[in-house]
């Protein structure tokens, strides 16, 4: 029996889905960790990015942060953080993944607010809007396509990197692959491949779903701007 057939047998066995530590359990862990990491990233990056964009300062900081996180291996943070005050378990993993979600969120929030046409801004000021009103009524609505693009990039990246939590026994769908490699290719080649299919399918599914969300969140007149927002995120990369 070749590996592909073995993978099919693995996926076709209901017990592999419903057992404790089975696929459904792992999927739940995966989504919990990813959701928490993206949420944490949003809480930090959006207020900061929007504020920096509004005041027009800190562009260098945004670039520096994305360059720096690109060079730090994911598994370095995943192994270091559990040994700090965060302790073992989910918190260090969530924090580690949130760190890698910061650059796309921050860069897009910053660019989104920054790219608002200076003439629009002047017109709003001329109409007597205060700084806060300008942000809330003019800059934020115009930044929505960028915020949505950043959210999508960050979320897809976090869902992908959550698979690496398995390196430190942190749960998630990656655990199926890591366990398979632990047993060896000859014994568990099918399990490894099946795990790979599940992880890849989840990432592509999230990517597709969020692309739709991004489209829905973007008002029709702003849609051409979406392409630009996509291009802004190239430099931030993924894991």
């Amino acid at each position, binding site marked *: 029996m070749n590996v592909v057939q073995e993978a099919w047998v693995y996926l076709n066995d209901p017990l592999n889905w419903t057992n404790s530590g089975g696929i459904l359990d792992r999927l739940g862990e995966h989504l919990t960790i990813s959701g928490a990491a993206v949420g944490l990233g949003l809480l930090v990056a959006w207020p900061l990015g929007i504020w920096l964009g509004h005041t027009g300062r800190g562009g260098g900081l945004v670039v520096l942060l994305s360059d720096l996180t690109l060079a730090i291996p994911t598994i370095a943070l995943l192994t270091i953080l559990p*040994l700090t005050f965060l302790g073992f378990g989910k918190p260090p993993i969530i924090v580690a993944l949130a760190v890698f979600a910061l650059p796309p969120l921050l860069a897009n929030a910053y660019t989104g607010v920054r790219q608002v046409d200076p003439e629009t801004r002047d017109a709003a000021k001329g109409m007597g809007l205060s700084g806060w009103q300008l942000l809330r009524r003019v800059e934020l609505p115009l930044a929505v396509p960028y915020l949505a693009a950043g959210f999508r990039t960050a979320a897809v990246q976090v869902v992908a990197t959550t698979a690496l939590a398995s390196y430190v026994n942190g749960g998630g769908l990656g655990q199926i692959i890591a366990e398979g490699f632990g047993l060896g290719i000859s014994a568990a080649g099918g399990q490894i491949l099946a795990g*790979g299919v599940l992880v890849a399918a989840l990432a592509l599914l999230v990517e597709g779903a969020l692309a739709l969300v991004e489209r829905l969140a973007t008002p029709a007149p702003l849609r051409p701007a979406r392409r630009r927002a996509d291009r802004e995120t190239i430099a931030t990369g993924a894991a």
Partner: protein
Amino acid sequence: MSLRDLAYQDAANPWFSWDYIRTNSSTILDALGEHVTLTAEAVAVAIVVAVPLAVVAYWYRPLSGPILALSGVLYTIPSLALLAFIAPAVGPTKSTSVLIGLVLYALLLIIRNTLAGLNQVPREAQEAATGMGYSRWGRLLRVDLPLALPGLLTGVRLATVSTVALVTIGALIGKGGLGNLILGGFRNNFFKAQITTGTILCVLLALVLDLILIFAGRALTPWSRRAR
């Protein structure tokens, strides 16, 4: 963990220890060597594959959509899943498994940036080259590619830095270069000195390679320096 732990070299499990580096220098150098080799091989193969694809996308517009989309999908697939696809087919103990994954990841960054560079070649330069009698290939090699070099180099830099970080993923099958130190340190009773040594070397390697590529880029494109 705290500053006090960092200050005392005698701490039971310090974050950083010269003693560890001294006694394990050959292991560390081996890991570093494996890391550098994997990175260099991956980026080199990725350039060889990605640049022609970018040129194809540049020459035949209708193909640029599919080429970018395909490399985008490859980029979206999590690295661990990619390893899970490749390792059973290639052999889990071979570093080739890791290498193929690294190449597939680097592709998108190089294709996108090279294509962006090619698309920025001024129309006047293209027309002047054609008017001077350059053939399609001649124009590509003498005009288009040299003018697209800044874009290409940006792609190579991004690919190199992210590849250095990504090599560590191979630690799962024992082929992760410095990642072997990081993961090995974690599994070996949370040996902090080994984890931080691996991490610091990894970040330093990315930084050094990035600087080398920046200087190489300056040397290769003297005109862009003069323009500034």
